């Protein structure tokens, strides 16, 4: 039984106040030399791991830099965990970790010295910073190489050292800008595993900017696609996939014509995509079980049944075609 509107309002009042969004974009715009880079971004991002996607020049890195306080917004603002990025820049910086895209180091330092310094700059006392520097380097897999000078590190090791400096102070939000850039497949897998571990620990939210859709698909639960400085799509990947669960791909053996006419009787829309291949849309009330029963009745073998779901690539390409997505 539905409650009257007034009663619903009362119930809502009694509910605990929800946590502030991880990132709340409030009409954020950034221009360089009069050229708009980000244009009125709006929306609240709440995912555990948010993938930031977009073609080159879409404004991904500028968005991260603006959230980190490197660039002043020309209009609007944004909030991170409820703190304004302009008014409370220091509080925000104490909560975030940043792994830059480019090589960024302090010269002539061993990894442990470098990570320790970064920890101290984040406010950790020297002893705690040293202890956590060791832990962070072991965590990312550089334990054995932690006393080596950073300039002797391979590209993969440098990426891991950058991750270690980003997590040494245990941030609540981690910005990772192209973390798998230039990594060979084993190193990439290791990086992805680490990112997923951090995400699954539940102790930090992640914003991952990457050109590699696969990386984002493997690590993120939400995606924000930018196009020409505007939000093209912001969606929850899992929900997006769920919404496509009515589309099925079938591969059959037997009398396909009989099976197709039976499907028509069941009220399903279908398309024959090849020999023994069908694409169908389940109508309301029709379950996968019904398809198996139908196949048994018509003596048709179902060799393969899979959900046709939009891959991230599909979502990305659609966003690039359509322009503005929904929030």
């Amino acid at each position, binding site marked *: 039984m539905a409650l009257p509107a007034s009663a619903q309002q009362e119930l809502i009042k009694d509910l605990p106040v929800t946590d502030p969004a991880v990132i709340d974009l409030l009409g954020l715009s950034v221009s360089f030399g009069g050229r708009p880079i980000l244009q009125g971004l709006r929306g609240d991002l709440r995912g555990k791991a948010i993938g930031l996607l977009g073609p080159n020049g879409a404004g991904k890195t500028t968005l991260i830099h603006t959230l980190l306080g490197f660039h002043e917004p020309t209009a609007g603002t944004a909030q991170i965990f409820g703190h304004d990025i302009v008014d409370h820049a220091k509080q925000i910086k104490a909560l975030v970790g940043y792994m830059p895209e480019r090589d960024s180091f*302090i010269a002539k330092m061993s990894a442990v010295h470098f990570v320790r310094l970064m920890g*101290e700059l984040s*406010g950790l006392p020297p002893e705690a910073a040293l202890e956590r520097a060791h*832990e962070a380097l072991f965590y990312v897999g550089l334990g054995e190489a932690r006393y080596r000078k950073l300039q002797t590190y391979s590209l993969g090791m440098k990426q891991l050292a950058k991750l270690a400096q980003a997590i040494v102070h245990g941030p609540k939000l981690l910005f990772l800008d192209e973390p798998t850039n230039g990594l060979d497949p084993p190193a990439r897998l290791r990086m992805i595993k680490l990112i997923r571990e951090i995400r699954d*620990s539940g102790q930090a939210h992640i914003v991952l900017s990457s050109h590699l859709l696969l990386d984002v698909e493997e690590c993120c639960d939400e995606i924000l696609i930018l196009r020409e400085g505007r939000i093209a799509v912001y969606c929850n990947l899992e929900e997006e996939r769920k919404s496509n669960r009515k589309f099925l791909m079938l591969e059959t053996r037997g009398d396909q014509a009989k099976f197709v006419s039976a499907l028509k009787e069941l009220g399903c829309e279908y398309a024959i995509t090849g020999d023994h291949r069908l694409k169908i849309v389940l109508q309301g009330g029709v379950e996968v079980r019904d398809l198996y029963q139908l196949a048994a009745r018509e003596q048709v073998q179902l060799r393969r049944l899979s959900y046709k779901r939009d891959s991230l690539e599909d979502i990305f390409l659609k966003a690039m075609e359509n322009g503005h997505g929904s929030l």
Partner: protein
Amino acid sequence: MAVYEQTYKRYAGPLTPEWSRFLIIPRHAYRGVFKSKIFTAFFVLCFVPLLIEAILIYLHHNVNALGTMRLQIQELIPIDATFFQFFVNLQGAFAFFVALLVGPPLVSQDLRNNALPLYLCRPFSRTEYVVGKMSVLLILLSTITWIPQLLLFFLQSYLEGFTWFRTNLWLASAIVIGSVVWILLLALISQTVSALVKWRVVASGAILGLFFIPSVFGEFINVVFLTRLGNLVSIAALMKNISSGLFGTFVQTTGSFRIESFDGTVRDIILNEPPLWSSWTVVFGICVVCLAILSRKVKAYEVVK
């Protein structure tokens, strides 16, 4: 916690006070600075004149020592403003070479290695970064300039008595202000050059050039135009005037001579040093320019417009 517990965890312990974080930079920088044995040896050498100064002060008050060395007190340099000014200027020269060795890589290394985003993505502002980098030099140079000079002033006061201390208290302020202005100028100029030039050798050359080329140019102006206004472009001359002003030894008129033209007319030329306020103004102007350049260069990312 043991290092084998490899899970991601947030830090929940105490944090250092925000105001003290700029000191992290010099603490870590000195590790690298004192790794060089040549620099360490030179730094130790910087204390030799201070030792001599201490010995001279001690000799003035120890009759036995004078007797052993068969010296009369009149033969020693008197301990007055000129005495302290001489040693302050001498230590200033040593400070210049220390700044030349330590200053150039301070910011340039961070710019070359894109380290600025790593500093500035933390609760650490651009101002704290600049102050932190400057304090690398300021602390180091203080240990060879005003701190030991002040201690020697107190030694002299202790040996000479309270009356001398009371009468010459202004000398203490001259020592501190003169040294602090000099090391501040050195720190600012070397940091600014370091922020503009990414290569250490070039930066060292540029700092040397900034001090010596204007001096030569200023002297050229002085000679050609028969003036002392050329001293306003020479950092060394500016500091000499400021130091003289602080120690009460500043002389406005430094020379006069008579010249005869081809037509037989005779002219008296009086060489007047630029007024003290103009020297202070130029030094202040240099500091402002340095700060403006640093504020422009010390950024996480340079925006290409």
